[in-house]
């Protein structure tokens, strides 16, 4: 495996699908996509549903064939067996075999990587512990919930201790605990030196995890780079949580203060940073209390809606779940 160069290097990939009853029409899924993913980073491929994220992953894994363009993974062309020895892949909404148990499936995956029997057994136990499925190790997968299948999907993607892991919507179907656990696993993979390439339409996940992102829309990259390059990290305003103010007291607050949300007798106020001091004094003078003050920066969600606009027809964003 070539050590130098990016983990993923995509040059001008285009892909269209035949659609319609007689498959006479074509829908362009990717248009001249070029991307480089450095080694050792968590890279987020973001975009609404239908923007080309999964198509990109499938092209990189050799499941689909490009109309034009090329790509290398870990310095090798797409599909090379030597590369696949170092890859992990979690498909979107994974499905496995109804009548196999997680232990049997991970053993199967280990056999495909040529792991010896003892190593397969140890690795299966380790991975099932990691994803929280140790107690279901001998349960047939037809009894699994979507979240459990997702966890097992992640486990099988890590059987070979991959250098590069492709995760297609890894948080899909998970409860909050499961999502946190997956986030921790992704960060741990990065600490261990792996490159993680994941696709998501959940912006908060990308914000929490990614060193770099590419934003796809309609099969093209509309923005790419480090998050601090894409987002403005300056504080845009302050978010202030106050209590003890009635409607009369609120009306007398300084100019520029905006009531963002009411939560029972508490109010969330948005105020420009320069007006914060005056707001705090005004709240106290009116018998209220300032409970918290938080600086607010531009989020990915703000960025998308400000820079890219609302989703195109057939596309859907999720800010968080």
């Amino acid at each position, binding site marked *: 495996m070539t050590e130098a160069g990016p983990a993923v290097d995509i040059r001008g990939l285009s892909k269209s*699908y035949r659609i319609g009853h007689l498959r006479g029409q074509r829908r362009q899924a990717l248009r001249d996509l070029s991307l480089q993913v450095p080694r050792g980073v968590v890279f987020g491929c973001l975009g609404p549903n239908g923007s080309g994220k999964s198509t990109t992953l*499938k092209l990189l*894994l*050799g*499941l*689909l*064939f490009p109309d034009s363009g090329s790509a290398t993974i870990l310095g090798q062309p797409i599909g090379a*067996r030597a590369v*696949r*020895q170092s*890859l*992990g*892949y*979690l*498909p979107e909404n*994974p*499905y*496995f*075999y*109804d*009548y*196999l148990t997680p232990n*049997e499936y991970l053993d*199967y*995956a280990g*056999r*495909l*990587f*040529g792991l010896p029997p003892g190593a397969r057994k140890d690795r299966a136990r380790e991975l099932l512990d990691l994803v929280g499925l140790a107690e279901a190790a001998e349960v047939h997968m037809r009894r699994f919930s979507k979240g459990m299948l997702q966890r097992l*999907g992640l486990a*099988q*993607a890590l059987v*070979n201790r991959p250098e590069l892991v*492709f995760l297609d919507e890894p948080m899909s179907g998970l409860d909050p605990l499961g999502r946190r656990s997956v986030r921790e696993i992704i960060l741990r993979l990065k600490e261990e030196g792996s490159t993680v390439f994941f696709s998501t339409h959940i912006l908060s996940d990308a914000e929490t995890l990614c060193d770099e992102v590419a934003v796809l829309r309609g099969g093209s990259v509309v923005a790419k780079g480090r998050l601090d390059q894409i987002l403005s990290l300056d504080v845009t305003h302050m978010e202030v949580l106050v209590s003890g103010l009635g409607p009369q007291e609120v009306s007398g607050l300084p100019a520029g203060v905006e009531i963002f949300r009411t939560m029972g007798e508490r109010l969330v106020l948005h105020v420009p940073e320069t007006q914060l001091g005056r707001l705090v004094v005004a709240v106290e003078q009116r018998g209220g209390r300032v409970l918290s003050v938080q600086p607010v920066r531009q989020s990915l969600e703000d960025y998308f809606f400000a820079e890219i606009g609302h989703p195109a027809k057939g596309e859907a964003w999720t800010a968080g779940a």
Partner: protein
Amino acid sequence: MRRVAAVARNTFRESVRERVLYNLLFFAVIMTLSGLLLGELSIRQDAKIIKDLGLAAIDLFGTLIALFVGVGLVSKEIERRSLHPLLAKPLSRDEFLLGKFAGLGFTLLVNVGLMTGGLYATLLALRRGADPALLKAVFAIYLALLVTVALTLLLSILTSAAVASVSTLCLVIAGRYSDVILNLGDVVPGMPAWALRAVMILIPNFRNFDLKDRVVYGDPVSFGDLGWITAYAVAYTGTVITLAVIALRRRELT
């Protein structure tokens, strides 16, 4: 080879846990045992009837297992995308397909073995003797089942599960009545001879594998005969599997 064996092992493990397999085996046992009842009704013919029904059960239910388990296993892998994470591992499409074929072939071998064991047990229980010639017919049935499995694999890759099931069934029926195709020239006078020959070559001639009557009624089946049908099965299956490999290499997995 190690990876082909891993896929074959997994295919066998999954297929023996399929409920449809046990339903079919249950009916195969019922059909074999029904020979006992019919044998009672036919004076001195009971052994022949038991053999006849037993071999027919192995043939019929083996074919149904090859069709339904075979189509289900491969189509499900493609349609439910369980194939995707496998192909992201160091497993080629060719190895996957050969592993599926080997796994299904082994599943059928075990099933045919069990049904044959049941037939011999029935004959021995009635003290009608364990005629070793039956194994020749069983061997021919097994070869036919391998041809059927190869066809199910090819058609599962080219079409959906439902279409693959129906089209394989049509090919199996057409292949069993291939003599009708030979006589098509009489029914459709203008049909050129080469077209008939082409159809005969394309459709698997399952009549070649039908040794049931010859074995049951004591007609000799030489090893030369067995060698010829084995060669035919190897050639036909090899061709179909090669086409399936090409089809899977070209298939986009969306």
